[in-house]
């Protein structure tokens, strides 16, 4: 099964600290030699300030050796730095926590800064201390503390780059401390920040520097995709949200260009949310169709049992092959860090998909045969089918004939007027859009400004930092990580 493990592909796009849980998961499985995994963990920990953890790992690795002396040294350093940074940060914290200050602070950051400077003699350097301390806390594993400091820093600071870095840091903290709700919020605002950077560059009339920023953005998005897996697979509504995000054109492109292995999670999420999909709106509704298309397109560079399953089912309509792929996919999900909890869900829904497709194509189905296809006994199979018929709301069309042991599916052809309705559905809206565009043109307003206005409006509404177009757009997320480790 090791050949289907994609941890090695995922980890390079994660923060050092985020990789620990993944490695821990791997060490529980027996996919890889235990030694190797443990060594990887040790190597990983050495780069952090989590000295005790590193020592533990060292003991496990080399039980009969003395720990290297630099670790002790490092611990001393860490303690000292911690104290120093704390005192620096405390100054700011003291001020902020006063009640009158909290009341005096407004939305406008510049004004806040001026206010703090006038009344409490706090400058930007002081505020940056918050960032440094937060970051340091993160390096030794005090995630919730780090989250607090970074949060405060972000509220006060005006430095766009550091803010973004703090954003990443905060997201990592939330993920690691398991605050999925806040992590989700953080994720969304971060995503907005990243996306808004494009707007600023694409509306930029000079195309030359945008290649670099486009690259930086692609990188940020790749990171975001990987980090968001933590959130989406742990949050209650995560899977639907995952579909929404990943299927948006920008992120779909990112997946296709830089990290096709994410398709596995996309496919899995689409399968798992099958039931919810009918109720959900927008992209998630046609998710499966879209995903199958992409799987087909990217087949040459990435395939695994999960994607193969969808392909066999919806491209080849080879139910036997789909069945085989599903069996392997089951074991893959067992071993996958993110999918392990969803294994049963995944399996059930995958079966549903098989039988749904099967029923749509067939008129008369042998119950025995279908049960066999679903890896179920006849009894179970019958029950399953009854449920299926109920679920698929095709009660009128499908009947079980127990005497012959077959299901009859009677599917009247779609009435023609339905097609006509489908065809004419969007027309009114499109015409309206045409009209709007023309009137806008007539008003002499260029389209760019209109869009910018929209973007800004959005920024203000959510209360996030308004990303104006002037900010330097090439701060890759690596900056966040590098600084977080430093």
């Amino acid at each position, binding site marked *: 099964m090791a050949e289907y493990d994609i941890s090695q592909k995922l980890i390079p796009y994660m923060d050092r600290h985020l990789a620990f849980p993944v490695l821990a998961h791997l060490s529980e499985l027996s996919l890889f030699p235990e030694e190797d995994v443990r060594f990887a963990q040790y190597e990983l920990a050495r780069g952090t300030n989590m000295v005790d953890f590193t020592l533990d790992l060292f003991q496990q690795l080399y039980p009969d050796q003395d720990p290297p002396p630099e670790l002790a040294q490092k611990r001393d350093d860490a303690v000292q730095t911690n104290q120093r940074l704390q005192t620096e940060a405390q100054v700011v914290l003291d001020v902020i926590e006063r009640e009158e200050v909290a009341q005096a602070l407004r939305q406008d950051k510049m004004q806040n800064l001026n206010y703090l400077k006038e009344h409490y003699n706090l400058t930007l350097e002081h505020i940056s201390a918050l960032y440094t301390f937060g970051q340091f806390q993160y390096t030794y594993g005090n995630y919730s503390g780090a989250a607090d400091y970074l949060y405060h820093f972000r509220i006060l600071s005006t430095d766009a780059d550091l803010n973004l870095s703090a954003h990443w840091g905060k997201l990592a903290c939330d993920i690691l401390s398991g605050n999925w709700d806040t992590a989700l919020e953080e994720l969304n605002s971060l995503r907005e920040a990243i996306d808004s950077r494009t707007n600023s*560059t694409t509306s930029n009339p000079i195309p030359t520097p945008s*290649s670099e920023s486009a690259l930086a953005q692609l990188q940020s998005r790749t990171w975001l995709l990987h980090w968001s897996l933590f959130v989406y697979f742990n949050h209650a509504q995560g899977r639907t949200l995952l579909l929404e995000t990943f299927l948006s*054109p920008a992120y779909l492109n990112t997946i296709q*260009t830089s990290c096709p292995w994410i398709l596995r999670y996309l496919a899995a999420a689409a399968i798992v949310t099958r039931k919810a999909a009918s109720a959900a709106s927008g992209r998630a509704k046609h998710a499966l169709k879209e995903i199958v298309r992409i799987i087909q397109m990217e087949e040459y560079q990435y395939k695994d049992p999960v994607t193969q399953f969808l392909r066999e089912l919806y491209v080849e309509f080879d139910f036997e092959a789909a069945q085989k792929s599903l069996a392997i996919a089951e074991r893959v999900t067992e071993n996958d860090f993110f999918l392990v909890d969803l294994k049963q869900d995944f399996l059930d829904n995958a079966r549903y998909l098989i039988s749904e497709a099967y029923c749509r*194509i067939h008129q008369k189905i042998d119950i025995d045969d279908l049960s066999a296809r679903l890896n179920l006994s006849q009894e179970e199979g019958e029950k399953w089918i009854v449920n299926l018929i109920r679920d698929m709301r095709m009660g009128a069309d499908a009947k079980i004939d127990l005497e012959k042991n077959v299901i009859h599916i009677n599917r009247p052809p779609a009435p023609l007027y339905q097609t006509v309705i489908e065809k004419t559905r969007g027309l009114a809206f499109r015409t309206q859009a045409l009209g709007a565009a023309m009137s806008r043109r007539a008003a002499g307003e260029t389209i760019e400004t209109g869009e910018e206005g929209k973007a800004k409006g959005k920024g203000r509404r959510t209360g996030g930092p308004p990303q104006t177009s002037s900010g330097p757009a090439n701060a890759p997320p690596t900056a966040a990580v590098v600084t977080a480790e430093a």
Partner: protein
Amino acid sequence: MSRFFKTAADTDSSSEESDEELLSSGDDTPAKPAAVQQKTPMSQFLKTAGDSSSSSSSSDSDSDDSDSDDSDDKPAAVQKPRPSTFLVGGGGGRDDDDSSEDERKVVKSAKDKRIEEMQAIGKSIDNALRIGDWVATSNDFDKLARLVERQTNVSEPVPPYWLRALVTVENALTATKEKDPKKKVNASNSRAQNGMKQKVKKATKEHEALLKTYNEDPEKFERDYIQALAPPPVAPREVRPAQPAGAAAAGQAGETDEFTTVGRGGKGVQHTVETLFKDLAQVNENRGKKNTDRVEQVRTLEKLLTVAVTTYQRIRVLLALISARFDYNPAASHMPNDAWLAAQKELDQLVKILIHEPTYSVEEEVNFEYDELLERSPTTEEGGIVRIRGSVISFVDRLDDEFTRSLQNIDPHGTEYIERLRDEKVLYKTICLSQSYFERASRDEALARVLMRRLEHIYYKPDAVVEALEQIPDIDETTRPSLSLQTCEKAQSLVHSICISLYKTSNSLLRTRAMLCHIYSHALHNDFYTARDMMLMSHLQENVHSADVGTQILFNRTVVQLGLCAFRCGLIKESQSTLQDIFATQRVKELLAQGLHQQRYSTLTPEQEKAERIRQMPFHMHINTELAEAVFLVASMLVEIPLLASLDTEEARRKAVSKSFRRLLDHANRQVFNGPPENTRDHIMQASKALQDGEWQRARDLIQSIAIWNLMPESKQVKEMLAKRIQEEGLRTYLFTNAPYYTTLSLELLSRIFSLSLRSVTSIVSKMIWNEELAASLDQAGGVVVFHRVEPNKLQQLALSLSEKVAQLVEQNEKALDVKLGGGSGWTDRGDGKGGDKRGGEATGGGGERRGARTGTRGGVRGRGRGARFAQGLGGQIGGAQAVRT
């Protein structure tokens, strides 16, 4: 007199006199007498000129100029003994160099010639004045004025002859006025006279000061002038060691006899280190003039090269020599091969010198002035680097272009073409050499250009050929470029690494072309997906129509190669849609620059046709259009035949089908009698019909018997793939055609008819049901397909078509608005980001270029696919996208 005429006739044939003819082209009638008149002083002058300016001419002597007197040699030799001995003596030295020539040459400098001319004209003015012929006077005067102007341009002092002529004319004018103002002169004469007055007035004004000094003492002025012209006398120069001493002695002896004051060497055919720069300057001065003998120039330079001692000299001579080589007769279609080879060798030599001597640098832009006539070396220069004006890259470009041009003009089916093609190897070596030079000199701009040249020599070649090309003889470690087959191992990775380095250049044209070559190479190696992704991510299909024609041709080539690649990989649909745009135009040959378009309504001007001819690809780079057409038609057949069968109404059929294939099919259907298939098209058309009738075996046999598949590298696999496709598409066609006539159909029967496994039949039928192409379902128990098809009634049909039309209307409106809004970034959701500008460009580009119009439509068609998606993700940057991909 007859002798004069003879000489005149003689001189006409010589290049020197024709120059004069050119100068005096304004005068028609008096030209003859003038020439005759000139001759008299001319031959006399030979002596005086030799006397007066011999000291200067000795240093400036140039074999080229010696032509001028060829014509005079013969009559002079007969008539005058003195010059003849002189000539023999002079010629004696010369004969050793080129014994084939029996004409002897007297060498004079350009300066001397001018003086001679001026004197001659002055005389003729005098003559004309005497007989009162103002027309002739006016013409001569003009001639003289022009000469003087030229003289002042080369910053020599105003000659006294000019002033003298001015004075005489002026005097004559006043004289006529005074003498008899009423005397009748004929109309043209008086007009000329009046014109003269004006001219003289103007000229006197210009040279007022000089005239004054001249009027004071004409003789002194003249003497001063001659002195000023003559550079310090040079000691009699050493005869080249190569020359036999005896001959040299004879030459010197003969000379001293006649001209004691002059130290004249071997008549200017001698080149020594000291005079090298002057000779060079001389050659440069004469370059590009109408009557310069190019062969002679090259010969001179070759000799100079053997003389050149220092690196600086060698570089200078090589620079001049290589550019002289490229000056071939413009009437010829291409450069002569031997000249090309020589130029190539010399360029090699130059580049090697430059590589080994990093203190010398040849640059296009040298900001400071330096004296062309002085020797320079690193020690005397600022910063220790000798900068020389010149351009290596333009030589490489030119060499490559000339190579292509010669290939364009040689019959590709003859052996000469192959012979010529062998020279590509040395050319490639030169390119590699200069690449390594530019790498060492870190000249990025030039490096990119030379890399592009290199890439263009290898991107379309199969691996084996590239390997052969890469085995460059006598290129050692010091001269090896950083990229080679040794470092990259595979030809494809060589292309890859060249492209990567080209993506880093700032020149967007080079980037685009590199991208296309890269895609082409991927397609050639059957790496369809990579090629496709790169093509889409580059967004070239959206803006290629605004590129130059060469790039568009490359783009078209790439598209065709991509289509072929898809076909080889068995991706029929992709192949069809890729090739569609090219083949729909019916001008494949023209689009690929593989042949001129035969236009029914010939609207091309000769210039356009010439430009078109220059763009043609050399034969060895051609993509076989017949193969491409076969691929396109077969792919079309596999896509269109089932589609045709699935459409019920005639109207729908007319719309949905690709036109080019449909036209052929209709044509084939109209034939009363179908003979056995002869060409590729016949085969495919008959196969299509067989496929429509469900006779897949016949279709398969027909397709497989097409001979042209043998040109594909993997013809066997391709044929197998085609057989399988035909089976599948045959099944689909069969189902579509016959569905209305069955209620059930046994799957087993189907699998028997089409020799497909039951499983794949089920899979195909399932797919059709799922995609709602076929109104049917499977009966698993009975193993049959059950059809439940309902014919829509008339009203329903109408409602359907109405709704379709309304949808089209909206779409049209949207498109129209798109065009109107043009530059704005798309007003609908689908075009956020960069799409807008590009669409705007499309709209404007569509009207202009013919190619543009076509690619414009393509951009529209394909832009909807994945390309549009990438547009949003990556902002359409080739560089950015590329870095990610690789």
